[in-house]
């Protein structure tokens, strides 16, 4: 390896380009003009650095990697003094090294300087896959009544004496939290039923936590029919009991943040015994009785959920965005359009009545559909293209609507974000809605655009808060928090069955639920306090978790908030789910934990390792603690530069083993939970254990800036610095001034970003482009 590598990897970098003709920075640059240190730094760079690193650190043929990153200046200065210029590091030390580091920092090294040099722009984008699915769901839902879950959980149950659900034989009416009944050879309640036959109908809605496939399993020796998100065709039809089948399964794709109708009808007839249980296997979950937390007694209309698989969106800049198209994507939009058209047309009968002219009603529905899909009223011209011409082309109005849906959903006006470049209040409504709900504006928001209400900042904010408080807005925030913590990557956590025999898949699923309940708790309070995520001294636990972690709860206890080692633990960083997820089968992993905290919480640009290194197996170093082993392993210069940052955060959590249990000792050694962090302003912070580390991060401006930046990117899917070089600092200050209220910050981001759209073309096409 060339000696230069150490320098490169410290600066966190990498491009091939010849030296520019004018290879120099502009001496009249206002940054350097009145500051002698910066002037000196510029001169040093000219003299010693530019021939290899190029103007503004953009790299040359010899040293192609561009120089940028987020290290503090003192770190840079130290490195320059030790290693640069290559081969004669003594030529640039002391004040020279400090001056050039300072100048590089301000001229091109920091993210802010990079944004100034290469201003990011708002790009034309298509809908991301989740935006597409949400938009379809809301397009259909816009024609039905809206259901927001209340506080009640469980399903509404009607019990009948007799197997035909006759109203006059209804004996019981109640709320059942879960469906799991075993009557053996008996009856639901003495004196009200006969043994030979009785029936039960459960009705209500499902509120799933995640987007994905849900596998339902019905277990009964009697007869049952399960409908999920479809009021006509059962997902499971076991109405005819036949032979010895007892388990029946069926799957549905569901989107989080939405409410789906569910109905289970069940009856006993002549069988010697009776029982019924309803299970599901949710994404990231295990097969379990559908928890009452996911059941509500309110009825709801079915949602159109596109099941067509799409290629995943680009995530190369850290957040999902729709800035590329592919053949697969184009095909998927076609299949999804057909799927949607079929479902929408099948649901048409419920949207029309017998009171007025049928054709006229269908035409109105068609216009509404297109306008909502395009997020703006139709001009006469477009109305002709997208609606009238299709009604004229066929005698069958349902077929016309089918074609209208197909055409609309294939149109760039639906598939792209604000594609017409009008940049009016309708575009503003659209941006606001996508930011807060990840979906198209609802009718109220379109109306607010129409009435010019959205031009008024206060009314704009009012709308933003309305969306924020919508059930979908809540789901959107939770989705962000999960992606902020990278929870989707923590799947199928397994532990060594020899060392941790009680760490079952059920327990792993419980741990995730527990963490997600914390996220929900924070989001569901008015204060929505971000710091609470890092500082809370409680954990949600059920009996299984409590048994495993030695907390005093009954073994069958439902999830509840408990104090869990409050003097040792603090917030998410010491939550058993993250601690277990960011660990190996047998041992902890300070590196995984450190990367999560430096990259995720503090927002540092930690790049992938320059070398692929297999971690030293604990068995090969039987006498060492994990801390000692990791320190030795990451000591080479190529590793140490990043791992200095990563490890010294992760080490502070070494009191927690591979399953997140507290420990004082590891093997023969005593745990050393001290750590440190060199802030971007050059100050060193020291801490011991999780509580001190969490307290530091909760108050660190770096954390606040990182959170604001990531939330912005998640919501807006455009580079935050395209909205002004100071936008991160401003959002971070806003966050602080609003007591770290996540919802306030989200509304602020939505309102700010809603004002600005992509810049349409202002210059005529050149000859080449016209081709």
């Amino acid at each position: 390896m060339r000696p230069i590598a150490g320098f490169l990897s410290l600066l966190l970098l990498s491009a091939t380009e010849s030296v520019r003709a004018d290879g120099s920075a502009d001496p009249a640059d206002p940054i350097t003009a009145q500051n002698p240190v910066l002037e000196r730094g510029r001169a040093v760079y000219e003299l010693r650095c530019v021939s290899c690193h190029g103007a503004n650190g953009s790299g040359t043929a010899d040293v192609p990697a561009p120089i940028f990153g987020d290290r503090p200046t003192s770190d840079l200065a130290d490195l320059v003094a030790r290693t640069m210029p290559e081969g004669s590091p003594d030529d640039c030390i002391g004040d020279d090294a400090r001056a050039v580091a300072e100048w590089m920092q301000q001229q091109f090294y920091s993210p802010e300087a990079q944004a100034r040099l290469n201003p990011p722009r708002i790009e034309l984008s298509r809908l991301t896959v989740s935006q597409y699915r949400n938009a379809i769901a809301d397009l259909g839902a816009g024609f039905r009544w809206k259901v927001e879950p209340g506080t009640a959980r469980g399903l509404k149950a009607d019990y009948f004496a007799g197997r035909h659900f006759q109203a006059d034989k209804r004996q019981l009416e109640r709320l059942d939290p879960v469906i799991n009944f075993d009557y053996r050879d008996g009856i639901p309640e003495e004196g009200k039923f006969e043994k030979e036959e009785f029936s039960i109908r459960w009705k209500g809605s499902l509120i799933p936590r995640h987007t994905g496939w849900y596998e339902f399993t019905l277990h009964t020796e009697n007869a049952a029919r399960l409908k999920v998100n479809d009021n006509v065709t059962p997902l499971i039809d076991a109405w005819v009991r036949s032979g010895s089948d007892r388990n029946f399964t069926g799957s549905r794709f569901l989107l989080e943040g939405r409410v789906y109708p569910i109905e289970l009808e069940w009856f006993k007839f002549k069988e010697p015994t009776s029982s019924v249980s309803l299970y599901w296997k949710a994404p990231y979950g295990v097969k379990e009785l559908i928890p009452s937390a996911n059941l509500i007694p309110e009825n709801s209309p079915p949602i159109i959920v596109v099941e067509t698989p799409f290629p995943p969106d680009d995530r190369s800049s850290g957040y999902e965005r729709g800035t590329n198209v592919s053949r697969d994507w184009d095909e998927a939009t076609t299949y999804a359009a057909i799927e949607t058209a079929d479902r929408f047309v099948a649901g048409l009968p419920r949207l029309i009545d017998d009171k007025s002219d049928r054709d006229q009603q269908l035409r109105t529905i068609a216009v509404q559909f297109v306008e909502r899909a395009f997020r703006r009223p139709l001009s006469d011209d477009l109305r002709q293209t997208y609606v009238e011409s299709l009604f004229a082309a066929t005698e069958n109005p349902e077929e016309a609507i089918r074609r209208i849906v197909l055409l609309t959903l294939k149109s760039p006006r639906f598939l792209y974000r604000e594609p017409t470049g009008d940049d009016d209040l309708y575009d503003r409504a659209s941006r606001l809605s996508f930011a807060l709900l990840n979906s198209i504006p609802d009718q109220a928001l379109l109306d607010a655009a129409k009435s010019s209400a959205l031009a008024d900042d206060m009314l704009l904010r009012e709308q933003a808060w309305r969306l924020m408080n919508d059930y979908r807005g809540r789901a959107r925030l939770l989705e962000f928090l999960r992606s902020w913590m990278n929870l989707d990557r923590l799947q199928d956590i397994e532990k060594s069955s020899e060392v941790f025999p009680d760490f079952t898949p059920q327990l792993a699923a419980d741990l995730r639920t527990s963490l997600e309940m914390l996220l929900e708790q924070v989001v569901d309070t008015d204060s929505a306090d971000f710091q609470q995520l890092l500082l809370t001294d409680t954990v949600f636990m059920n009996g299984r978790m409590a048994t495993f972690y030695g907390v005093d709860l009954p073994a069958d206890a439902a999830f509840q908030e408990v104090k869990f080692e409050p003097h040792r633990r603090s917030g998410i960083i010491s939550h058993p789910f993250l601690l277990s997820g960011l660990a190996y089968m047998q041992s902890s992993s300070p590196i995984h934990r450190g990367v999560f905290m430096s990259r995720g919480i503090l927002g540092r640009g930690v790049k992938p390792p320059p070398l692929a290194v297999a971690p030293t197996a604990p068995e090969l170093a039987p006498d060492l603690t994990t801390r000692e082993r990791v320190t030795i392993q990451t000591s080479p210069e190529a590793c140490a530069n990043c791992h200095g940052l990563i490890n010294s955060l992760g080490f502070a959590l070494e009191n927690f083993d591979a399953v997140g249990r507290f420990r004082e000792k590891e093997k023969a050694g005593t745990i050393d939970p001290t750590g440190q962090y060199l802030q971007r302003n050059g100050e060193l912070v020291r801490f011991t254990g999780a509580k001190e580390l969490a307290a530091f991060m909760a108050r660190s401006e770096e954390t606040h800036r990182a959170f604001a930046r990531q939330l912005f990117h998640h919501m807006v899917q455009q580079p935050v610095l395209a909205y002004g070089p100071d936008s991160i600092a401003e959002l971070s200050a806003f966050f602080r001034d609003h007591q770290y209220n996540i919802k306030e910050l989200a509304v602020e981001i939505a309102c700010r970003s809603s004002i600005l759209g992509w810049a349409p073309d202002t210059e005529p096409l050149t000859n080449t482009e016209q081709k």
Partner: protein
Amino acid sequence: MNNRRHFLRSLGLGAAALPFISNLSAFASPAALSTRKQRLVVMFSPNGTVPWDFWPDEEGATFTLKRILEPLRDFQSQMLVMHGVCDKVRGDGDNHMRGMGCLLTGVELFPGNIQGGSDTPAGWASGISIDQEIANFLQSKAETRTRFGSLEFGVMVPDRADTWTRMSYSGANQPIAPMDDPYQMFRKLYGQVKDREVLTCVLDNVQDDLKRISKIVSAADRHLLDEHATFVRSMEEQLRTSQTRDIAHAVPELEPGVKEENDNIPQITRMQLDLLVNSFVNDFSRVATFQITNSVGQPKMHWLGIDEGHHELSHEPDENKEAHEKLTKINTWYAEQLAYLVRRLSETPEPGGDGSLLDNTLLVWGNELGQGNSHTLNNIPFVMVGGGMDFSMGRSLKYPGVPHNRLLIALAHGFGHHIESFGNPAYCKDGVLTGLT
């Protein structure tokens, strides 16, 4: 049969030479000749027949059709009327249930929770039905594989899944729902083609809109739309090519807006039969079932001047002449539907082959009961029409009460699928039903 005749004719051999040729082993095996497309249709109508107006008195090649079969007179030389074939399957369920569930499966129903008018409750049949067995056989070979394998048509089948409404089974406990909405069947058969037509127009429009928007956006963003336009264009081209490739014959036009209700039964039946013929022309499938209503079906044939439901009438004793006059009319109407299908098939040339579709199709008409008022499972009114199986047609056959499993085996053998037994093996001991060829 017809194929063989054509084959012989092309050799310059006449009818006189037939017996001799048939004994030559090289010609005796149907498989050796069977490059033709063989097809099977099973039609079902419910509630038994009126025996005295159904069964011909005579046995053999010379017989007189009774009133119910009269509509098939033009095709008498291509018919087999098969008296004495009985559904001997017993076990759980009443006769209507077993008649239906065992008609094509030949095997007992599982115990279950469907309670009939008598006997013990039952569930689904415990085995595959012969139409699906044959369809699987045909699908297993490249030369006989079709897009759907089998199609299950229905007419006014009640919207409930139970032992009385299902006769086709893809396996034990796996009933197949017949499709009784012609529009739905149309979408199944031709939806892709229609979608392609519509999509081609849609994509045309999308191109225009992409161009309009492309003019507005900046050069840096334009590449996205240009790339998108390329994909749209290539899909449009694909659609145009596949359109001409996939569908050799015109897509039928269905009269729009025919509601699924009792009085539209004649019209729905006609639409479904037309779709069946069309699906054969396009070789979408070589096996079809056609289920008119269901076991215990209650159509009210107002169009015949009959206001009572069919099942209700079928319980009337033999002495009730008025009721039986109506039952004869009802069953004659079913025969007319079969005759319509037979005629359509006979008038439709075999695509890419010789003769008509009828020359290569065997139609089997069955019922869940022999007679309604006795609920007997003996003498199921089986009639077969057409040249699909190389059976020797144009005869009235009288069997001595044989299990219908043997007939089911014969259908499989007709396709060259030589199974030894089908359904409950106890009823298959005497092997394939003899006297057909």
